[in-house]
């Protein structure tokens, strides 16, 4: 069980959170023409890294805020949590 430090509420159990995917994926700019392949890559293509990984998490049972977690996918060690805009 992970203990995750929510930037708003402090350290809480993983039970209260929901994983929200890779935080490094950027959505294509709104209104810009993109190819089907670029859209497909944005929706489906993920790197599945081993090591430090920037992730989005949602404090779904607490303050209901989204934030970023820098976590090792190999050891589950959490290095840093930040607000989404930081």
């Amino acid at each position, binding site marked *: 069980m992970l203990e995750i430090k929510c930037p*708003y*509420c*402090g350290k*809480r*159990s993983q039970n*209260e959170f929901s994983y929200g995917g890779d935080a490094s994926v950027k959505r294509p700019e709104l209104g810009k023409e993109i190819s089907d392949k670029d859209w497909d890559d944005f929706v489906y293509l993920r790197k599945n890294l081993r090591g430090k990984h920037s992730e989005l998490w949602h404090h779904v*049972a*607490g*303050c*209901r805020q989204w934030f970023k977690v820098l976590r090792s996918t190999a050891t589950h060690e959490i290095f840093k949590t930040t607000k989404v805009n930081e």
Partner: protein
Amino acid sequence: MTAVSALDSIHKKGLFGDHHKKNENDLLKIREVKNLNIFHIVKYKSSKINAINIRIDDLELPLQTSKILSNKDTRILWNAPNTWIVISKKEDIIKKIEEKLNDKDFAITDISHSRAVIQIKGLQTIEVLKKGCPINFNKFEKNNCAGTVFHGINIVIDCATDDLDTFNLITLRSFGESLYHHITDASLEFGYEGV
């Protein structure tokens, strides 16, 4: 029209669990808190208003994480950044809220009838809560609140006393029955009185 409380036909009064040969004053007390006026307040992202200067029923909106400010009738809970829950016994609390918060800067929602509130009181209260709730109660203080889970049910915990023996548990009305059974089942080993 008559308001029916969330646990109207669920909550049973009397002595339950291991209460034999125990002093009734030492037993856990479990009750449904009824007739509360509960309002959810959210400050819009676009709002330029500083919430520090706002007072509702002579209480500021708490800006510190997990903080509650309260008086005899009203409690204002920090729920999330720029989000608060106002719980009051006063019928006219909505007027006071609307006087201070304009609808261009704040979203105000009456959630009085969409929540179930269970109060658990007694020396073993924290032991009961620890069975299903991952919060660190060693760091919990009077007038602290927390959004968390109890056996997978989303709840807000509101601690109202110095010695951490009285907690109000606020959950969605539809989860009220399930939470009530989880809490009462967890209390059986200590013995409890439904009041």
